[in-house]
C-alpha cells in the first residue's frame, strides 16, 4: 500500500466518481484505488460531492407501492455475501474479476521478443489491456493518439519522465513521446487503458475556470 510515487490525477478521480470515464479507464482507476489509500481518500472526496448533489435533488414522485416492491425485492434476493478476502496475488480485485484470476490466469498473446499482451476489453474506441514486458526490454512501439493510463502491477519501468513501479500510474497523451524500458530482474506487467477517440487539443479544457479563486 505504501511506496506509490506516481498518483492518479484529480480529474480522473472526479471523472470516475461522476461515472463519466470510458469503461476501460474505470478498470484502471478501480485497480489503482484498490492499491492506494491516498487515491481512495481523494476519490471519497469527489464522491462526497456526488452525495451533496443527491441530497439536494428535488424529490421525484415515486410509485404508490414503491416501498412494498422494494421490500419484496429484498426478500427475494439471495443472501448478502461477505466481501472476498484479498488474495495473495499481484492483481487487485477489480482486475481479478475481469481476468478470472491472477497473473497466471491471463491468456497472453505474443507480441514478439518475449513481450505479450492480453486485450481485456474494447468498446467505443477505448480499450484495456495487460502488457507483459521481459526485464530489460523496451515496450513495443505504441503511439498515443488519445490518452493512455498505465498502472504498474509487477516490476518497474523507466521512461524519459521517471521510474514507475508497482502501484504507480502514468498518464500519457499524444504529446507524450516515451520509450518505457522494463527495469531490473523482474518482468514488468502493466494494465493499460487507451482512448483513441480523444485528441489532446480538446483535453481538459478548464471549464471550471470560474471555480478557481472561490
Amino acid at each position, binding site marked *: 500500500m505504501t511506496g506509490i510515487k506516481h498518483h492518479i490525477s484529480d480529474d*480522473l478521480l472526479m471523472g470516475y466518481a461522476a461515472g463519466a470515464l470510458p469503461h476501460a479507464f474505470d478498470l484502471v482507476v478501480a485497480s489503482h484505488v484498490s492499491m492506494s*489509500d491516498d487515491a481512495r481518500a481523494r476519490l471519497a472526496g469527489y464522491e462526497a460531492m456526488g452525495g451533496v448533489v443527491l441530497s439536494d435533488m428535488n424529490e421525484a414522485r415515486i410509485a404508490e407501492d*414503491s416501498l412494498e416492491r422494494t421490500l419484496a425485492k429484498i426478500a427475494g434476493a439471495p443472501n448478502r455475501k461477505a466481501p472476498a478476502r484479498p488474495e495473495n496475488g499481484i492483481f487487485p480485485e477489480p482486475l481479478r474479476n475481469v481476468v478470472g484470476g491472477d497473473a497466471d490466469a491471463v491468456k497472453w498473446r505474443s507480441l514478439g521478443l518475449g513481450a505479450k499482451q492480453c486485450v481485456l476489453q474494447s468498446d467505443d474506441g477505448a480499450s484495456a489491456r495487460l502488457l507483459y514486458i521481459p526485464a530489460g526490454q523496451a515496450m513495443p512501439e505504441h503511439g498515443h493518439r488519445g490518452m493512455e493510463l498505465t498502472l504498474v502491477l509487477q516490476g518497474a519501468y523507466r521512461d524519459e519522465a521517471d521510474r514507475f513501479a508497482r502501484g504507480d500510474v502514468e498518464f500519457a497523451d499524444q504529446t507524450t513521446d516515451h520509450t518505457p524500458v522494463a527495469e531490473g530482474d523482474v518482468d514488468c506487467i502493466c494494465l493499460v487503458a487507451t482512448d483513441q477517440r480523444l485528441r489532446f487539443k480538446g483535453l481538459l479544457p478548464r471549464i471550471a475556470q470560474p471555480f478557481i479563486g472561490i
Partner: protein
Amino acid sequence: MSNDHAEHVRSDASSSPLDAVLARRPQRRDGPVTPTEKTELEWVACVTAIAKDEDQAAFARLFRHFAPRVKAFLIKSGADESLAEECMQDVMATLWQKAHLYDASRASVATWIFTIARNRKIDLLRRYARPEPEELPWGPEREPDQADVMALQEDSERLAAAIRQLPEKQRNLIERAYFGDLTHSEIAAETGLPLGTIKSRIRLALERLRRAMS
C-alpha cells in the same frame, strides 16, 4: 409515498436508533448537536439498524427520504420514468443488502447511496458492470470510532454548505458532471471546494482501518 408509510415511520420515532448513537457521542466535542448534524447521524443510525437488526422501520425512514431523490437523480441522468422507478428500487434494495459494508467514518449516508445509484445507473444505461475498488470490510466485531463518524458527518455537512453557496452557474456545472452530462474531458476537478479536510479525515480513518485489519 402513502400515509401508511408515514405512520409506520412516525410510530418508530420513539425508539430511534439515533439515541444510542448520540449517547455514545464523544465527550470531548464541544457545542450542541445541530439539526442537520442530527439528521446526518439519524441516517447513519438507520443504516446501522438495518445491518444489525434488519430493521424494516429504519429502512422505511431512509426510503421515504432518499427514494424520491435517487429517482430524481436517475431521471436527470437520462433514465425515463419507469426505468428510474425500477432502478431506484434496485438501489434501495442494494442499500439493505450492503448495509453491513457501510462505514460512517468514510462517507455520509447520502454519499454512500449516491455511489450505489451511480453504479446501478452505469449497469443499466451503459450496460456494463462498473469495475469497483476492492471493499475494505470492518472485521466482524469492529465498528468505526464514533469521533471519526461525527467528524466525517460534520465535514460532509460543511461541503454541502459550500456547494449550496456557489453561484448558480458553478453549481449547475457540478450537478451536470454528476448527472453524467459532461464527458470526462470536460470535467475539471479544481473546484475550489473544501475537499481537503474530508480527504485527510478519510485518509486517517483508512489508516486506522488498515491497522485494525492487519
